[in-house]
């Protein structure tokens, strides 16, 4: 029962956020459902009168549904060149088309031919026959399709958090990232209840209409439309600058520091939009102007974005200089000065096991590649400054390699599911789980210092940003960063507040 108590406490502490995310979830789901209904029902009716084209069209909708929902969300970013609610709603709509389309088509096609003939023979026009006879008879089947789609949408909408569309999925992603079940439950349980609630409303609607009157159906449609249209009437002030950040405590804290600093010294209206699942997602969002600034690590900029290798033993300055030049040349982006802490990659093991096997450096792993199972993030497993480099520089190829989400590694190591993980140097996990960090004796990992990355044109539009953000240059030590990460990951502190406290305590607002 403990975890439920934790969830209730979390709900108490995060009420504002909860209601915002719930609203986002409802809004996104209803919008997608309405779009699906307005596309599928007329299309289904049309197909029931043009049977020859029905099969291919329904087949196409079926293909849309076979695409894994995660992949569909990903495609939408590429196709629409945008992140957030819009691509999420498009993806959810595409996903929900089939059940409604198929049921509308089936419901109308399966109206007793004798009844249709009676209607025609009595002199009903095609439209009147549809409205008075076919639709009322097909309503139960159509409603069943809508209910299926609705459950599908409410469930899949939790994934929309991955492309920054918000909703209850935010809680679930945070929960996975921090290996915190209370967060996962706070997202999952309301999502499930929401599906049940909508299902209940639709069932009552169907019962009231009894396949007779279309009025209750129209009433519910109207109510849904109203909910969806509500934000159009509320003031929707667009922020001047959007600060992005990858998933996790550290990027979120840094992004919030940028936010506080800029708002403190300018009149710009700044918003933080963090939670991007990978480097590629965040950088892509920057390229399409979805966000304006985000903190990127120097090592990542060099190896992942510029596809260069850092020669072993490079200094922090060298890596930053090369990255800044490269970003300016290749992407026309400005890369301001980095902070002090170095959140480099590291390999970590359980302290006890490392002691027993006498492993202190990465090279010491040599004899154990067939016994020890590493658990790497997807990103690390495929990076030159990750497992690929370990194979090349250290000549270590492990027999079994597990790949898993970043938030799960520490726990997996703790319970012995894996023996080696890639860790971030400033991660609070290292302290919390009593891990031994292996020495990078061949200097594979380049330095990873956080620094603000933005388009050149953003800096030209707001030249004061350079001075404001460079205040952080050389600030924040490894220990300070680790401490702040710990506050967020283990004490559940609000990243915005942690960031503000650091800035206040260190005299940035004086």
């Amino acid at each position, binding site marked *: 029962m403990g975890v439920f108590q934790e969830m209730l406490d979390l709900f108490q502490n995060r009420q504002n956020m909860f209601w915002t995310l719930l609203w986002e979830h409802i809004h996104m789901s209803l919008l997608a459902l309405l779009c699906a209904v307005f596309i599928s029902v007329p299309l289904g009716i049309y197909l029931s009168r043009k049977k020859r084209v029905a099969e291919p069209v329904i087949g196409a909708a079926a293909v849309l549904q076979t695409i894994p929902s995660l992949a569909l969300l990903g495609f939408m970013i590429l196709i629409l060149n945008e992140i957030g609610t819009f691509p999420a709603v498009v993806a959810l709509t595409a996903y929900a088309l089939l059940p409604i389309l198929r049921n509308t088509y089936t419901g109308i096609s399966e109206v*007793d031919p*004798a*009844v249709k*003939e*009676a*209607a*025609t*023979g*009595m*002199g*009903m*026009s095609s439209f*009147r026959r549809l409205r*008075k*006879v076919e639709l*009322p*008879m097909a309503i139960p089947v159509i409603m069943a399709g809508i209910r299926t789609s609705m459950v599908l949408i409410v469930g899949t909408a939790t994934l929309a958090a991955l492309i920054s569309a918000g909703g209850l999925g935010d809680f679930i992603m945070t929960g996975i990232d921090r290996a915190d079940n209370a967060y996962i439950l706070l997202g999952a349980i309301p999502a499930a209840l929401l599906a049940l609630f909508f299902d209940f409303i639709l069932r009552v609607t169907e019962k009231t209409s009894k*396949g*007779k009157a279309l009025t209750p159906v129209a009433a519910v449609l109207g109510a849904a439309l109203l909910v969806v249209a509500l934000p159009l009437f509320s003031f929707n002030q667009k922020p001047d600058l959007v600060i992005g950040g990858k998933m996790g405590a550290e990027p979120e804290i840094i992004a919030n520091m940028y936010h506080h600093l800029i708002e403190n010294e300018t009149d710009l209206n700044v918003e933080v939009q963090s939670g991007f699942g990978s480097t590629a997602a965040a950088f892509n969002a920057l390229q399409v102007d979805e966000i304006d600034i985000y903190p990127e690590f120097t090592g990542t900029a060099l190896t992942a974005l510029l596809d260069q290798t850092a020669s072993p033993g490079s200094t922090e300055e060298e890596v930053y200089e090369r990255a800044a030049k490269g970003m300016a040349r290749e992407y026309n982006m400005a890369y301001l000065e980095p902070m002090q802490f170095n959140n480099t990659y590291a390999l970590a093991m359980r302290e006890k096991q490392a002691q027993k096997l006498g492993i202190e450096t990465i090279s010491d792993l040599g004899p154990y590649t067939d016994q020890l199972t590493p658990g790497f993030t997807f990103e690390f497993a495929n990076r030159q400054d990750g497992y690929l480099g370990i194979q090349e520089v250290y000549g270590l190829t492990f027999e079994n390699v597990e790949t898993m989400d970043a938030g799960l590694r520490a726990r997996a190591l703790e319970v012995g599911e894996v023996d080696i993980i890639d860790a971030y140097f400033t991660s609070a996990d290292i302290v919390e789980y009593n891990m031994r960090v292996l020495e990078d004796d061949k200097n594979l990992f380049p330095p990873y210092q956080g620094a603000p990355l933005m388009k050149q044109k953003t800096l030209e539009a707001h030249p004061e940003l350079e001075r404001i953000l460079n205040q952080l240059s050389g600030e924040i030590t490894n220990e300070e960063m680790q401490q702040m990460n710990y506050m967020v990951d283990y004490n559940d502190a609000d990243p915005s507040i942690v960031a503000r406290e650091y800035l206040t305590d260190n005299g940035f607002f004086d």
Partner: protein
Amino acid sequence: MITFESITKTFPDGTKAVDDFTAEIKKGELFVLIGPSGCGKTTTLKMINRLIEPSSGSIRIEGADLTRWNLQELRWNIGYVLQQIALFPTMTIEENIAVVPEMRKWSKNQISDRVDELMNMVELDPSVYRRRMPKELSGGQQQRVGVVRALASDPDILIMDEPFSALDPITREQLQKDVKELQSRIQKTIVFVTHDMDEALAIGDRICLMESGRIVQTGTPHELVHHPADDFVRDFIGDRTNEWDTPVKKMMSCKSEHSVNVADLPNSPLYPAPMYIFDSDYHFLGRSREGEIEDHSVTVSPETMLKKAVEYFETSDVDALPVIENGKLIGVLSYKDIVRYMQQFHKESGKESV
């Protein structure tokens, strides 16, 4: 008046459903199209309200070619009764009947009065059945609604496509009588499709016998029975010239003074005797003797020939026999029924000799 002139219908697959069909249906007559299945009778019928278009030839109503009518107005003016009944399942009985009047933009009061009138006409109490759904009614009740739905806006023509074939024999006979009576009262032109010669003979003013899309013979029931055009007609009609070889179902009374529901037994008069008793499902229970139920073993089936039934009368001491089918009392055959039938039979035969 409906005129068919050299109507031919060839379906896309090459089947010739109707071949050079020429006929004239008079105003106010009940015209029966009959023949074995696949003879083209239903196709011919559906060409009247243009559910099927002829491949060649022309159909005229009151001298005007069908294609010159507005399609919807034409259909509003032709009541249509289907074999499958096909009431609209999501509408109440009242709404079903009101379909055509609504399209014709009658006022609410006018429609409501008309619904009352029609439901009373087929003995469905409006106060009970108005707001019922079709599936809450028995098959016979549904088809009565089907018939009055077709009559709702007082069309000049009624077309009926095997309307009673899905109903049980008692209900069917009752409805045949109702239709015949209706027609004599309201003088509609009725085109009626059936494959049942008994039905055709019972209700038709004229009968048109078809085979393979062609007309074999058109004439009054009497003409068909007594002057069949060829062996096909004779075979199709069967031998109906000897009155003693007629099954008793042709003359029995469905509602008889000699039968009573067991529930009404205490209030029923002791006379006439015998009094046969059935329960709410028409199961035959026996006969009444001084208010008690007594077994009764001498019964006939609806297919029993008259000459056989008369033997039963001779060997038993009763004035009426129960007609039983599958344990149910479907009618009573009394001396009165036999006398009435004989009179009618000889009146028809008499016509022949005139």
